[in-house]
């Protein structure tokens, strides 16, 4: 005979469910409240600078704390260029690692490589910065940069891109460090989604006589593109906002140079460098306005990623 559920137990369940619902709802709302608060205070803090310089704040290259004149163009430029370098190097390498782990790697090697990548993600960014400044930058200065400058000296456009004295630090070095830092993010997510591809699909493709490359190209990547793009976006978000490591190796110069070997600055590096000693109100406000611009850039990047995904899905007819 089925046992009767007592009314008390039922009421207890209802109470628990209600509690769960309101707790989770509060958690979700907290995110919105915090985000809203951040936006409001960023806008409020940057008003004086935006009022003083207008739209010229975004396009001006001057950054002069002595005369209290500020422009964000070098910082915006540096942020975008370093992230671009990080992505150009980081995406292919990460996806390559993920493909190797999921498709080609002998079983005994899988664990060590995966663990190594997860450990990379656990290294604090200040360590990357110090390592970059003391170990990586001198190496670049002595070997890679003179080679690049020499190799492209005669090439028409590239000679400008790789020009100037080899400082060892600069936009290029910052981009390289960032590419190492985004590696674990993109790799671990792409590896996870690659592993989620149903074996049937892959086996069917192999059965038809596909090469490994064809299976990856035609089966794995199309099946997982949403996840892969998600991983890339996570990495890009990290690259755009990374502060400490970049501050150490970028050279911190508010200038726009044609050469990617030249020193530059990023939005977050400028804020980290200058906020403590920013004495005038306009100075502080200009730095907060930089933060607002970074916020907007991140938002645009995320929105663009969503849009891209949407279009790809429509094209694929899903």
């Amino acid at each position, binding site marked *: 005979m089925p046992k009767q559920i007592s009314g008390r137990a039922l009421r207890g369940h209802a109470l628990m469910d209600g509690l769960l619902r309101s707790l989770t709802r509060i958690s979700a709302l907290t995110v919105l409240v915090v985000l809203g608060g951040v936006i409001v205070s960023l806008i409020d803090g940057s008003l004086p600078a935006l009022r003083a310089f207008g739209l010229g704040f975004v396009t001006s290259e001057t950054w002069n*704390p*002595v005369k209290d004149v500020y422009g964000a163009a070098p910082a915006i430029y540096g942020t975008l260029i370093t992230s671009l370098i990080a992505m150009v190097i980081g995406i292919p390498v990460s996806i390559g690692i993920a493909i190797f782990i999921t498709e080609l790697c002998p079983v005994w090697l899988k664990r060590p490589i995966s663990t190594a990548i997860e450990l990379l993600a656990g290294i604090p960014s200040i360590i990357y910065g110090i390592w970059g400044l003391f170990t990586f930058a*001198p190496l670049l200065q002595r070997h890679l940069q003179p080679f690049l400058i020499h190799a492209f000296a005669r090439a028409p456009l590239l000679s400008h891109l790789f020009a100037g004295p080899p400082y060892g630090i600069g936009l290029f070095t910052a981009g390289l460090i960032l590419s190492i830092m985004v590696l674990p993010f993109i790799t671990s997510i792409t590896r996870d989604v690659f592993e989620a591809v149903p074996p049937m699909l892959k086996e069917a493709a192999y059965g038809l006589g596909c090469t490994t490359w064809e299976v990856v190209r035609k089966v794995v990547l199309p099946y997982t593109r949403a996840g892969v793009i998600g991983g890339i976006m996570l990495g890009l978000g990290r690259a755009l906002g990374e502060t400490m490591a970049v501050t150490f190796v970028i050279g*911190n110069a*508010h200038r726009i140079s044609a050469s990617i070997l030249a020193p530059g600055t990023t939005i977050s590096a400028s804020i*980290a460098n200058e906020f*403590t000693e*920013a*004495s005038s109100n306009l100075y502080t406000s200009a730095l907060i306005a930089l933060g607002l611009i970074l916020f907007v850039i991140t938002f645009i990047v995320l929105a663009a990623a969503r849009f891209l995904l949407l279009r790809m899905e429509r094209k694929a007819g899903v």
Partner: protein
Amino acid sequence: MRLIKRAWLGGIAAAVTLAFVSSALAADISGAGATFPYPVYSKWADAYKKETGIGLNYQSIGSGGGIKQIEARTVTFGASDAPLKPDDLAKNGLVQWPQIIGGVVPVANLKGIKPGELRIDGPALAKIYLGEITRWNDPVLARLNPQVKLPDMPILVVHRSDGSGTTFNFSNYLSAVSPEWNDKVGTGTALEWPVGVGAKGNEAVASMTIQTNGGIGYVEYAYVVQNHMTYMRMINKDGHTVAPTAESFQAAAANADWKNAPGYYLILGNQPGKASWPIAAASFILVHRQVGDAVAVHQALKFFDWSFRKGQKMAEALDYVPMPANVVKLIETTTWSQEIKDKAGNPVWK
């Protein structure tokens, strides 16, 4: 049984923590500001706590932050590497005095050149940082260093990227000796640098210079000593060549006319005197003229008085220069006992 034991231990731990926190809150002197004097302030604080049981809670968040916090009255004293102008002092009801002296030293890295072998003067240094002298074998540098064979190499300029009192004192000196620098760049804790790479903090400027053959930078003297850096001798205002030493910093401070500087607004750069180092720098303490908490301020003054008297050896061990005795007397007898008052108008320091 075990539960009870654990509860007991927890209770004891909580009580101990509470007692510790409350005693710390009651007794600690609170201050915030400049990073340059932080090592010596914390060493003083350590010794002072051992002697008196009163600790110091000093946040080295930078001079700008220190000024903001003392204006907002969230700390008992603020600390700044750049003195506030008398007008700003009056506007915010603040008093300031110099507490410790250090020196900013130009450093270079050229293969085969030993510390002190190179010599430079203010105008040439300004030209390098303006980007007008770009190679080490420039005739100007060759004339200053006739006995050294300077290489045909680009000069790689290194400067601070974070706002700092070091930069303030360095740029203030360049403004004093080079009208062009004063015109184009000026004086400040952060600047629009015409050339070079920026490094965060004295450590990073030092390491960038050490790593870069052909590099030039400027750091606090303590970093020169710690890293055995190739410092440059300088030609001072009187035309004498001096090396950066505690004696040459002290000479600059001794020659400075603190007595006739309202609010101690005096920058130790480019001081006269045969032995004066041209880029000496004092670091300042700020308190309110009319204090909110007279007990706390009195405690802070007692600490600074103790530092003036007993902290000299400690300061010298860290390559700082203590304030000369006559200046200490001036500070204590005029500023402290005449200008800092409690709400009833009685002097806080007696």
